[in-house]
């Protein structure tokens, strides 16, 4: 018998104390999770106190409790957005029927797959980011990556809760497998490609949290209207946390741009493509930032899956996974007779083709993602205006550097021109960072642990966390 009282240890609003089956499942899983966290979580900072936000409830009081905590002692919880009485399914063939509180037998396999794939991304990003603490440009940033990490851990819990509560033995096994796969591991890789890429430096981290976590947001938004109520409620609450991750990414890149433009102005560098000049003064040059955008954006687009997808059609029609902001869309929400324009390769060219809307669910979600990313680009480009530098960053064409979907077999430039494979490889470093670019970025990654100090390549944030001042000791490194 377990000595630990999990029901009170684990913040929850799912009545864990009286759910014996779930308790038993968690008792078996919890030690393995802690084991995983200690071996695969942030490397080297597990014994220090970090100023973290913990969600202990879903009301405004409870969802953001700040305080110092050692990460292995973080109170990962199981929190679902409150149940809406009388909610009905908003889309697909079951539109108008009451939402399901249990897993419908006919959709068991489909739902389990959706939950497992979503769940697999959460620990994956923790693994990808586990060395970043060692090169944090400030205590503020260090705290932020740890905050992101513990919350991804909680998102794993959220998915594990669904698996353990609703999918029986299969669910428990899948929950264990989530702890056994490893990002980038040759034998047991994470399910999706982008989650096996390394996050070796902080610019990569900021790009990842800007773009890849934004994919996470889009996926969670689509689940937030699911006809399976436990999934909808779980993901609704996860979205409150995901917002912070994207904030870390967006402001992180913004601070890099800010610092680079400052360096340029301080040193009379007027040519925005002057790589050598900026690097001489220890900044990250603008072309390299653009190339990092190109990479992370294109790899993230692959996460949306094939533009034309039977699986996506099935899960929409089944009422399990909606479109982005489904209730705000002005149509019949069933799409049986609608079409949707999708960019495809036809006759050697990229063309817009109308396809049955049900099969284009992934393409549409990617479109919404792209719109969202455009807004981010606008924010970043404001820095250039403020600093008086004639430059702007932009998203590459959606067909650029793709390994999944319509464009997987063609070679496309950042501007959307199809070129021969050989030419693409010859010109690759016009659009993607070279090894020497990446080595340069790595060379800048030096740990900065003085409260209020920031590495030379990044500027200070406009405001601290939870209203704390800039020189606040976000991580207590002196044990």
């Amino acid at each position, binding site marked *: 018998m377990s000595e630990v009282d999990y029901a009170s240890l684990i913040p929850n609003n799912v009545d864990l104390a009286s759910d014996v089956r779930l308790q038993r499942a968690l008792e078996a899983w919890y030690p393995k999770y802690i084991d995983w966290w200690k071996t695969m979580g942030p490397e080297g900072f597990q014994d220090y106190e970090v100023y973290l936000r913990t969600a202990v409830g879903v009301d405004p009081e409870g969802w953001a409790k700040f305080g110092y905590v050692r990460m292995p002692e973080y109170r990962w919880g199981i929190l679902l957005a409150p149940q809406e009485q009388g909610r009905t399914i908003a889309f697909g*063939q079951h539109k108008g029927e009451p939402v399901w509180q249990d897993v419908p037998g006919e959709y068991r396999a489909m739902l389990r797959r959706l939950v497992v794939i979503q769940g697999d991304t959460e620990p994956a990003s923790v693994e990808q980011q586990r060395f970043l603490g060692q090169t944090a440009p400030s205590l503020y940033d260090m705290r932020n990556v740890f905050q992101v990490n513990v919350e991804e851990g909680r998102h794993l819990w959220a998915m594990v809760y669904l698996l353990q509560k609703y999918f029986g033995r299969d669910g428990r096994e899948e929950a264990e497998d989530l702890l056994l796969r490893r990002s980038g591991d040759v*034998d*047991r*890789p994470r399910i999706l490609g982008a989650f096996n890429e390394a996050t070796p430096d902080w610019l990569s981290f900021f790009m990842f949290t800007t773009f890849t976590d934004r994919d996470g947001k889009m996926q969670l938004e689509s689940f937030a209207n699911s006809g399976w109520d436990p999934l909808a409620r779980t993901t609704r609450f996860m979205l409150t946390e995901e917002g912070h991750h994207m904030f870390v990414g967006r402001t992180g890149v913004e601070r890099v741009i800010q610092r680079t433009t400052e360096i340029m102005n301080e040193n009379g560098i007027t040519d925005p493509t002057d790589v050598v000049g900026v690097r001489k003064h220890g900044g990250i040059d603008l072309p390299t930032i653009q190339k990092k955008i190109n990479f992370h954006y294109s790899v993230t687009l692959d996460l949306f899956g094939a533009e034309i997808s039977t699986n996506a*059609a099935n899960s929409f*029609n089944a009422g399990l996974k909606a479109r982005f902001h489904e209730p705000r869309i002005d149509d019949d929400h069933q*799409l*049986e007779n609608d079409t949707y324009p999708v960019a495809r390769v036809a006759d050697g060219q990229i063309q817009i083709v109308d396809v*049955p809307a049900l*099969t284009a669910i992934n393409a549409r979600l990617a479109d919404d993602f792209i719109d969202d990313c455009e807004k981010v680009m606008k924010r970043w480009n404001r820095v250039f205006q403020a600093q008086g530098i004639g430059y702007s960053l932009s998203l590459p064409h959606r067909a650029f550097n793709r390994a999944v979907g319509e464009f997987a077999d063609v070679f496309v430039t950042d501007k959307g021109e199809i070129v021969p494979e050989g030419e693409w490889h010859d010109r690759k470093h016009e659009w993607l960072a070279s090894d020497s670019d990446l080595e340069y970025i790595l060379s800048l990654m030096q740990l900065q642990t003085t409260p209020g100090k920031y590495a030379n390549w990044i500027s200070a944030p406009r405001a601290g966390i939870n209203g704390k001042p800039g020189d606040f000791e976000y991580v207590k490194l002196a044990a």
Partner: protein
Amino acid sequence: MHKLSESVEGKIGRLEFRTSPEAYRHWSIAIDGSVARLVLAVDEHSPAAPGYELKLNSYDIGVDIELCDAIQRLRFEHPGVKTVVISSGIQGTFCAGANIRMLGTSSHSHKVNFCKFTNETRNAIEDASHYSGQTYMAALNGTAAGGGYELALATEYLMLIDDGNAAVSLPEVPLLAVLPATGGLTRVVDKRKVRRDLADVFCTLEEGMKGKRAVEWRLIDEIVPRSKFDACVTSKALELAALSDRPDGEAGITLDRLERSEKGDEIRYPFVTVHLDRDRRNVILEIEAPDRDAPTDVSGIKRQGVDFWPLAVVRAMDDAILHLRFNEPMLGTLIIRTSGDGDRVAAYDTLLDANRNDWFVREILLYMQRVYKRLDVTSRTTFAFVEQGSCFVGMLADLLFAVDRSYMLNGQLDDRLPARIQLSELNFGVLRMANGLTRLETRFLGEKESLDNARGLIGRKLEALQALEAGLITHAPDDIDWDDEIRLLLEERASFSPDALTGMEANLRFAGPETMETKIFGRLSAWQNWIFQRPNAAGSEGALKLYGTGKRAKYNRGRV
């Protein structure tokens, strides 16, 4: 090139079965010593008919025609190959099985013919493993779903990559409302001997099974981590190769492109001519005796290679049967005739029998057996007409026992010698049916004395009444009645329902014990072809039709 003539969406054009590795679009063969690797990397933009893409290494008839060719070439052209490893050239996916859009858009008869052909191809894989010393194994470097797993089941060893994702599955029932009918269900319980209740669980699990449990349930033989996968595949392949009796250092026999010419309603191959009679809806397949004496030994046989008469005849028959099945569905009766010097046929027959243990002769006999089996499962009425000048001797005499009925002329219509037939050792143990018996054993299932009697007739030239007496033919009309009998026979047959005939003939052809092979074909015909007709699968709201649209099938819940 699989596609020849006009096609519309979902409608397959005329199919061509002759191909060669240079023309493959979906498979590649790489040979390293005693191990061949057969790699599937389907070109999704080269379907056999317009209207679908071959995603996720899914297959259609075009993909399977290449596989069939590859299997055949590995046997004949590469005597030194002892293990064949089937794997995928596409990351994360071994094979997703038959393409669903293809099944959803193609005609019923194409679906049936497609399934039959894929079954025959998978049986040919097992045939190579069991009798040819060329053992197949599946290196499942990604998920094998539906027909993809069925393809793997046709091999003798299934090694699955253990990467936390790759699984084996038979999701047809939950996803598509059809059966895993390329032998899938039968091989799971009959060959792999998976317990029936566990098989029931497995066959309703859309996502299939992976890891240790897949091994425990005997769905696969081994799981191997990704980092060790290639090395384990190679060492297993070499281990299997060591058990083979195939020769080292022998040259193979190149399967040059089969010659075929067409003129009007006549198709000519070397030694085989096919006459299409569209008015009477029948086909005459005429086999000619050798035009020269048999070689004296094995090296003579090998010098002749594909031109060696028995091999040439079998190749032509193989192509002709497939052509008729797929491209001439309106011609319902297949009549087999022979012509030429029976003594020469007998000499070739003796030569084959005397050299049965040579790898090449073995391959010819096994190929003959497969082609005759193709005839057995062809949904056409089959007749043989034994006339003056014919040469139903030995291997050709076996065709008399393959057809639904045989007619032998009693008497003379001209001054040539009367018609005669002749048995040989090949009719008694070499050429077996899917039920494991020879055609004579099946024919005389209830009359052992007739079988013994027939054995005593080996080598004797039997005229019509003797053959009739021995039970070797159905009828022996005399020269006065012959023309009328034959005309009436063909007209009557052509008047019956083709469906009822197909069913009746298939029921009557396979007396005797069940084998895995007979079960596969029997169940394919009975169950899958029934399900393929039912609205729950093939109706406008059926699962096959709606697959990929995102719409869910509406089932009639009544049990039949």
